[in-house]
């Protein structure tokens, strides 16, 4: 899509009346560059806003001006006391979309406080806003904001945390189309949801789900009750254990000797256990080297290593050597590296392993030498000794436990019960506490094996049952089919978002390179380097005066990159005001090198360092207009009119750069020359 602005006419609205024809004389092609100078009050901002409204069809904002909250008249209406006040006005914009002409007219009725629009194109005359359908994508307000812009808007792109850079890229590269796809998926899902409400098969499934929810909730209540009861039971059992232990302390004086013997044997049991712990540790440490298991395993390690040596594995040469060799013009034998030789070398290279595998295999062989062949102690024998000792000690332990059991039976406490009886009671308490602990563990732990097909009675975890209830409720609310559909749509949306972000990152990388190259060319001193583009543009170096330069470069390069097939005009209100004089020439020069149409609306002191560069570097493909109001200040231009002066109801327009260059200069002498 190529959009061009051919001109506009403004009558009876705020500012001056004007007819602007941007076409080259005798053609229907606009000049590449157009400069229009309007003094303050000349309607520069109005023109800018009405061009935008014409392209987007957003005239409701214009009409809303007639009903302002502050009671003031519409900003598009002339002051009532002006000599040339009119009850009605109009703004006509002439554009082309892929060389198809289109004229948008906005009619203002200041008396009736209404705004109407009509469109004239190859399709004929139509009421309202009716651009070609193919152009609609590019005429959305947020898109038009990027090519019909004011200097301040462009500068927002580099303002910290403005989010402007991100929004701009989404629009220019049309990445927000991905969001549109996601919105469509959401809409599709909402529509399906509405449709599915009357679906009978879903209704049957919903009943099933409701039954499951009831069963799950019953299970949840049961688990909670059991948890409460078990917690109380555990406290009671622990209290009982404390009492039982106390009971054991109440010694029957007649049994003191038996009690002393028992204590001694319990101490011996502890010593025995400590000895066993040491043996177990030694055994496990020995087992860390697997060949300690047996002499035959040791032999198999040595045999395998020896076998690798015989096979020349890993070998002195690595596969990579041959893979690199075939890339050389000559073989090691100085013969030319022909395709046939390459093929044979590559086939034979498969007999060798890669360097990394080769290094690992060498280390493996070295380990066999260090840990097995050169091992000084006979660790297999040591393991056998430990094993024998462990058997012996385990046997002793068993005997010791039996002895203690026997002694326990004979030692009576003050209550007349034996230690054994009390210990049995304690063991029973421990057994039940163990069961309760198991229940509590299950209750608190998430069960990763539970899923929607798990039977409610098999679920023991509270968090799992909660999750299953939530899941089933979500499913019931949506219906079974819809639930699956929703999951799939969420997956698709994630995938689309991923593509969008990847594409954006790629565009950003390319854009940073293009921007830095352009900035390097434009800014000779005080270099600026774009470091990243996030929600705004980050850069190193530079001064505040360069802000707009960066913003321009950003917009222009982004358009250049994105619009391989599309071309949009760049119409800028006050393009040079925010740029310091140092960079004006450089930016103006950069603009002349754009392939897009460029129209700027200038005022006051924006001429210096800007107009001459634009003109000199683009003539004759440039239109220049000086537009001034019929006021006391400019009366002289009406009294002694320039040969090209075109007079309107409240204004005059002179076309040509020479007039603008000398227009309203400060010295009286220069003004006289004009």
């Amino acid at each position, binding site marked *: 899509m190529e959009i061009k602005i051919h001109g506009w006419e403004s009558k009876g609205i705020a500012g001056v009346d004007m007819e602007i024809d941007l076409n080259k004389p005798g053609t229907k092609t606009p000049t590449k560059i157009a400069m229009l100078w309007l003094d303050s009050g000349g309607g520069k901002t109005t023109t800018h806003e009405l061009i935008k409204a014409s392209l987007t069809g957003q005239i409701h904002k214009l009409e809303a001006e007639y009903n302002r909250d502050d009671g003031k008249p519409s900003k598009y209406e002339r002051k009532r006391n002006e000599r040339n006040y009119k009850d009605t006005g109009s703004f006509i914009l002439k554009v082309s979309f892929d060389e198809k002409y289109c004229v948008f007219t906005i009619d203002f009725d200041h008396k009736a406080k209404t705004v109407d629009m009509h469109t004239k194109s190859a399709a004929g005359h139509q009421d309202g806003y009716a651009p070609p359908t193919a152009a609609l994508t590019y005429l959305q307000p947020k898109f038009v904001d990027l090519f019909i812009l004011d200097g301040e808007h462009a500068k927002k792109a580099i303002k910290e945390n403005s989010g402007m850079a991100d929004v701009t890229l989404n629009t220019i590269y049309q990445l927000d189309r991905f969001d549109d796809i996601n919105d469509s998926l959401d809409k599709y899902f909402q529509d399906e949801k509405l449709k599915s409400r009357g679906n009978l098969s879903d209704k049957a499934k919903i009943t099933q789900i409701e039954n499951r929810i009831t069963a799950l909730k019953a299970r949840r209540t049961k688990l909670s009750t059991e948890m409460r009861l078990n917690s109380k039971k555990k406290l009671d059992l622990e209290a009982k254990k404390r009492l039982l232990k106390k009971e054991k302390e109440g010694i029957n004086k007649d049994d003191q000797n038996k009690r002393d013997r028992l204590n001694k044997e319990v101490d011996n049991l502890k010593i025995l256990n400590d000895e066993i712990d040491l043996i177990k540790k030694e055994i496990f440490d020995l087992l860390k080297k697997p060949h300690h298991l047996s002499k035959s395993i040791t032999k198999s390690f040595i045999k395998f290593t020896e076998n690798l040596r015989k*096979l020349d594995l890993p070998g002195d040469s690595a596969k990579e050597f041959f893979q690199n060799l075939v890339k050389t013009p000559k073989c090691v034998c100085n013969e030319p590296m022909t395709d046939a030789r390459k093929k044979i070398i590559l086939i034979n290279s498969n007999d060798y392993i890669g360097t990394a595998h080769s290094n690992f295999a060498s280390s493996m062989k070295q380990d066999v030498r260090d840990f097995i062949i050169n091992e000084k102690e006979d660790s297999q024998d040591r393991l056998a000794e430990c094993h024998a000792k462990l058997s012996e000690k385990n046997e002793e332990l068993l005997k010791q436990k039996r002895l203690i059991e026997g002694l326990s039976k004979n030692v009576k406490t003050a209550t007349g019960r034996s230690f054994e009886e009390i210990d049995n009671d304690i063991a029973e308490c421990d057994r039940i506490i163990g069961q309760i602990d198991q229940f509590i563990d299950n209750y608190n732990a998430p069960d990763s094996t539970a899923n929607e097909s798990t039977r409610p009675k098999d679920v023991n975890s509270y968090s799992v049952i909660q999750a299953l209830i939530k899941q089933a409720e979500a499913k019931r609310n949506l219906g079974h089919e819809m639930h699956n559909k929703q999951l799939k749509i969420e997956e698709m949306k994630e995938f689309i978002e991923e593509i969008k972000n990847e594409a954006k990152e790629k565009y950003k990388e390319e854009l940073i390179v293009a921007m830095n190259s352009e900035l390097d060319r434009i800014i000779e001193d005080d270099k600026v380097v774009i470091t990243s583009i996030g929600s705004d543009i980050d850069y190193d170096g530079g001064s505040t005066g360069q802000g707009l330069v960066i913003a321009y470069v950003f917009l222009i390069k982004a358009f250049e990159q994105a619009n391989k097939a599309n071309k949009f005009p760049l119409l800028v209100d006050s393009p040079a005001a925010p740029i310091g004089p140092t960079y004006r020439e450089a930016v103006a020069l950069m603009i002349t090198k754009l392939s897009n149409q460029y129209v700027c609306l200038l005022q006051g002191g924006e001429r210096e360092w800007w107009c001459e560069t634009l003109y000199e570097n683009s003539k004759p493909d440039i239109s220049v207009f000086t537009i001034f109001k019929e006021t006391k200040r400019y009366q002289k231009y009406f009294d002694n009119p320039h040969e090209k002066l075109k007079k309107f109801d409240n204004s005059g327009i002179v076309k040509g750069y020479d007039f603008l260059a000398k227009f309203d200069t400060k010295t009286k002498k220069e003004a006289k020359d004009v």
Partner: protein
Amino acid sequence: MFRVSTQAQTWVKSLLGQDPFKLSIDIYYIFCLTGLAAEEIKEIEGASHDILDYFPTPYQDHQRLIINFLLISEKNRLGIANEDKDRIKKELIEKFIDPNINSLTSSGRSRLNDYANAGHRILSGKMATPGNAAVFLEVWLNEMKEIEKK
């Protein structure tokens, strides 16, 4: 990922935490040694329990010996001839060793899991559910002697 079947994990539940089986991989290692010595594999069927995807510090000094043991057992199990350099290279070294992490490839870990699972199957077929680590070690060493004899 090194893993054992849920069945195996349940079988050794009482041992976990007892000296010298402080880490989950300690019991896994015992299963591995059993399977590797017996040169038997069995794929895990049904639910499994993930342990780790690397050899933890206590095993790192000797992990190459464990990998070597895997290659030896696999060579014997598959009946790869000593002279068959190509199979040793492709079916053992390149398939099971990931030199970039100085450890096993995903296939290597998976095959070691098969040996460990076979180890559990062998032991659970010959021993009652273990409760005491010292008794388990003693009985296990006896079983290893039996396996050696075969």
